């Protein structure tokens, strides 16, 4: 369809919206976030306002994509489309409260599984950890943060099953994804972060 040239302009908008909706869903599951965003935004924007239930279906996939890219849906959007199942998840992700994310997902598990996005949403734990670690770093206020401090933070939110090795693994992944600018000093058991912008905004890290 992408290679059909001028013929594309002859397609019905309804078909183009449907095509982009499925293309975006597939891209989300393949982890191609920018393609997913582009397609689903196209579908959402061009789907007529009176087709509320179709727009809602698009949003169910667009919301996770947007969240991974650092754009959080507003409470009024979620409410307008009767997607209040997301409210608690969004609030918890913004707070960096990993435990609350887990609880919110579990609470609405049947709904999210029915939509087919439960496993996708579980990946929000990564960006939530990043926000938690950012808060810990800001409170400690130096560029060398003892890993123990992050464990304290995780324990506060009820995550007790992460040991030091697993913590280092989580942080190493965040560094690899460019969500943290810094390096692990394994011997010293510290995370050394960049003096400037050590936790770039998620919307500026779109490489994933």
């Amino acid at each position, binding site marked *: 369809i992408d290679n059909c040239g001028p013929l594309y302009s002859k397609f019905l*908008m309804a078909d*183009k919206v449907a095509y982009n909706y499925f293309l975006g869903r597939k891209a989300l599951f393949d982890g191609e976030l920018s393609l997913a965003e582009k397609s689903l*935004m196209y579908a*959402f*924007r*061009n789907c007529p306002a009176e087709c509320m239930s179709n727009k809602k279906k698009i949003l169910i996939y667009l919301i996770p994509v*947007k969240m991974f890219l*650092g*754009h*959080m*849906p*507003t409470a*009024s*959007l979620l409410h307008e489309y009767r997607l209040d199942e997301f409210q608690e998840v969004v609030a918890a992700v*913004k*707070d*960096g*409260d990993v435990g609350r994310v887990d609880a919110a997902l579990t609470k609405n598990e049947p709904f999210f599984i029915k939509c087919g996005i439960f496993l996708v949403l579980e990946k929000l734990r990564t960006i939530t950890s990043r*926000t*938690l670690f*950012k*808060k*810990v770093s*800001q*409170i*400690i*206020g*130096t560029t060398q943060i*003892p890993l*123990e*401090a992050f464990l*304290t*933070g995780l*324990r*506060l939110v009820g995550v007790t099953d992460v040991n030091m090795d697993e913590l280092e693994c989580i942080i190493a992944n965040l560094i690899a994804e460019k969500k943290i600018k810094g390096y692990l000093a394994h011997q010293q058991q510290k995370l050394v972060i960049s003096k400037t912008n050590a936790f770039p*905004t*998620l*919307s500026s890290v779109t490489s994933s």
Partner: protein
Amino acid sequence: AERADGEDDDVNVWEDNWDDETHESEFSKQLKEELRKGGHPIA
């Protein structure tokens, strides 16, 4: 007609600046307290 990127009446439905902490949330306060209890130096 097709609606382009610019003409968006739902721009405001996505929040970008949720990350800059202008006011300290309840959760951040708790976190600070917990770190202090853990014996970490607080800036």
